[in-house]
């Protein structure tokens, strides 16, 4: 259903420069209930920082006197905050590691519950004038990693090494990445670097937007960041899984189908005791998050919404349905 809709949307507006992402029409509207109040705090991913803020703004419009505070300094800050109880929500751009889950379990006796809130395609950004074509994941690995676990035969240091001709050929590739507290860093290391190590030359940036700004001002730059942070000064590189594979752009359709190799779910972790119902303050926030209103905020922030099937599954796993 969704794919046909997306395809329809694509074909209608082929002439337009970019295509608006569509919501799953089956997603329910949010129905507010009465008597929700209290204060919430969210500590975690910087990738999800804006999205949490947008959700909070929407949630507050239904429950005006709920207090919500949002802090986003990296996914790794979420588990300690959830364990210490300083935050009720832990947005993370990667699933929790097993040792983080264990620490949580050691304190509470049960595991934290993840909610798949949206889909993010991690885009590889280059300067808008950069003519580079499609890259294979092995090439990406050889660009960013010193261990080259992907198996590319030689190190890639200039744009000429990936087939760019003319004056670009000799210019050395300048690398931009995220700092190690971010979930994006860990995810990219796992998927694009085949668990290898980053080169020392990668300029570690404090935020997703900073990566894009770095690439925008550096003609020879390349960097990875959430596709939502794209500006007019950069463009995304399409990717293929192997040297002779098919190229896929970073867009919603390819992310849903799993064709685009570096797309992921963005999670919001909650501390839910399996024997107790979730209190309405948090429960309604989650319900809002996966509703039509919440998911249109996802589009607003440049990510891709989840289909209704996932939304319902998440509500079920939290006992909200």
């Amino acid at each position: 259903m969704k794919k046909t809709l997306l395809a329809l949307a694509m074909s209608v507006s082929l002439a337009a420069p970019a295509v608006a992402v569509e919501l799953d029409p089956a997603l329910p509207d949010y129905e507010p209930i009465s008597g929700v109040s209290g204060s919430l705090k969210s500590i975690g991913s910087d990738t999800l920082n804006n999205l949490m803020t947008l959700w909070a703004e929407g949630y507050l419009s239904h429950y005006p006197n709920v207090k919500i505070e949002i802090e986003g300094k990296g996914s790794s800050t979420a588990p300690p905050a959830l364990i210490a109880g300083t935050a009720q929500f832990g947005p993370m751009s990667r699933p929790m590691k097993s040792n983080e889950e264990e620490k949580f379990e050691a304190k509470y006796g049960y595991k934290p519950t993840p909610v798949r809130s949206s889909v993010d395609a991690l885009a590889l950004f280059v300067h808008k004038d950069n003519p580079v074509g499609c890259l294979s994941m092995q090439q990406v690995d050889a660009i960013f990693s010193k261990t080259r676990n992907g198996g590319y035969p030689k190190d890639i240091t200039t744009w000429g090494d990936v087939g760019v001709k003319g004056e670009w050929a000799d210019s050395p590739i300048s690398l931009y990445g995220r700092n190690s507290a971010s979930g994006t860093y860990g995810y990219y290391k796992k998927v694009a670097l085949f668990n290898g190590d980053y080169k020392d030359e990668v300029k570690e940036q404090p935020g997703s937007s900073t990566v894009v700004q770095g690439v925008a001002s550096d003609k020879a730059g390349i960097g990875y960041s959430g596709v939502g942070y794209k500006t007019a000064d950069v463009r995304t590189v399409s990717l293929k899984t192997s040297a002779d594979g098919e190229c896929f752009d970073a867009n919603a359709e390819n992310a849903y189908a799993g064709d685009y190799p570096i797309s992921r779910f963005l999670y919001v972790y909650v501390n839910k005791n399996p024997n107790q119902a979730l209190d309405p303050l948090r429960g309604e926030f989650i319900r809002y998050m996966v509703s039509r209103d919440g998911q249109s905020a996802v589009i607003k922030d440049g990510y891709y919404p989840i289909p209704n099937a996932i939304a319902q599954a998440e509500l079920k796993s939290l006992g909200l349905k």
Partner: protein
Amino acid sequence: MSTNTETTSNHAEPKPGMNAASRRYTTDLTATGEPFLWGLGGALALGILLVVGFLVLIFWNGIATFWPKPIEVVTLNSGTVVAGEPTRDNVFKPGDGLLERLTEQDREIIDSNVGFAHRVLYRTGNYDLYNEDFRWVSDFEIAKVETPPGMYLFERQEWGVFIGRIAGLVLDGESRNLSDYDRAAIQEQQEAARERFEEIRHIERDEIGEVNYYMEQARLDLKRVALDHGRDSGEYRQAERETEQQITELQREYEQLAARAEAIKETDRRYRITLEEIGGEQKELPLSEIVRFYPANDLSPFGKAAVYFSRWGEFLTSEPREANTEGGVLPAIFGTVAMTLIMVVFVAPLGVITALYLREYAKQGRLVSIVRISVNNLAGVPSIVYGVFGLGFFAYTLGGGIDALFYPERLPSPTFGTGGILWASLTLALLTVPVVIVASEEALSAVPRSMREGSLACGASTWQTLRRVVLPRAMPGIMTGLILAMARGAGEVAPLMLVGVVKLAPELPVDGFFPYVHLERSFMHLGFHIFDVGFQSRNSEAGKPMVYVTTMLLLALIVLMNASAIYIRNRLKKRFAGSAF
């Protein structure tokens, strides 16, 4: 003291005649100090140039941000039409692949420019339709550029700006003929819709907010009873009954308010506007969703000025929208000022008392020297270290203790046990206390010994001398130290990120509920706002102008706070100038 310097300088200066003679005969320029003088002057000029350049950059970009720009409609060779505000332009070198696809004529033009082409960045808005807000258009793509009348820029409550035309209007549920409504009439309707929006917000936030607050309070009171007496006690059962009754009552009140808000919303839904982007795609939205709209190409200079000032008004007096990239910064202004003032309240007595003791009471010896050196060294500790200390000591240790003692019913959600404006102020007070101590000591030591001795000789005690003679004379100098501390504190961001500054905290630390001042709350800060909008927002291009405006505002705020402190200092100076012996 001043007479003293004059005499010394008289001594140092050679007689005018001699000076002229030595100058005439010397060949070595360094002997007269001329190159040195030029060096000093040059350094000063460079410093001033840097500061002025920085200020001009900030002000130039900041002042122009809110000025409405025209909307250009660009028809491309491919037939596509783009409408947007031209934002900035640059020259670039088209790659070989791109050159091949161009026509002969275009290639010639580019060749004549030694291979460079020109392009303009248009802010196209309409993110919900295009999935992008900005678009580069190269000169060789363009067939024609126009600024047609009737192009509107709409600032929306959500989704950012919309650029396009008005295609339809529904008032009170009836579709109206657009030709009957000129711009002023639509504006009137929009303002009325905005008023409805504000009223809904008032009901939801203030009135329902109050009900919710009391409900929460009732729940917490009950929890408190449970903690004090246990869940099986008679007190708990009675409290439970009371709370239930109270909550039912509040619930009824809530339902009335919600019904009132819903009625206004119902009316609101009957007023809608249809917008059409340049490609013909339409979008209908409630009239109240439109914060501001203006026909960009038809505005008179007065109209532009009106838009400009109305944007400033919104910026200074409203809350942020759309994850801080739009709307105002009122909570951040409030947070910055409040934090700085609270910091001064802590740092002033602490610093001054320390300085008084060190200078007036302590026996000047090795120990005092060590203390003094340590204080000076404290000023050099990186500010983030203070942040870590603040988080560990104030928030977790002190705050955690306060929570366990006074707010057990709210646990596990912390009250004081997390970052808040109080802890942030205390952390900054620690950070700035060396400045105050050093400045106060200097000021105290500048008070002439003879005055102290005179006072003591008249039979005054040490304390009386300090209070009546020394402190008043030293006050202006102490104030200078405080001003420096304030300037440093207001501009500091790094430690605050650890101890209470957040991206979104719509609630001010002051409100109408007991105890009215809530120092445990997190707050927003202009410095952090700059960081957040500039480096964390999705659309960094759209955030850029906001960064300049916010920086300008932060600078203005610091200047204002310093200016008022200087004003107070000068008044003090005047007051005590007459009371000197």
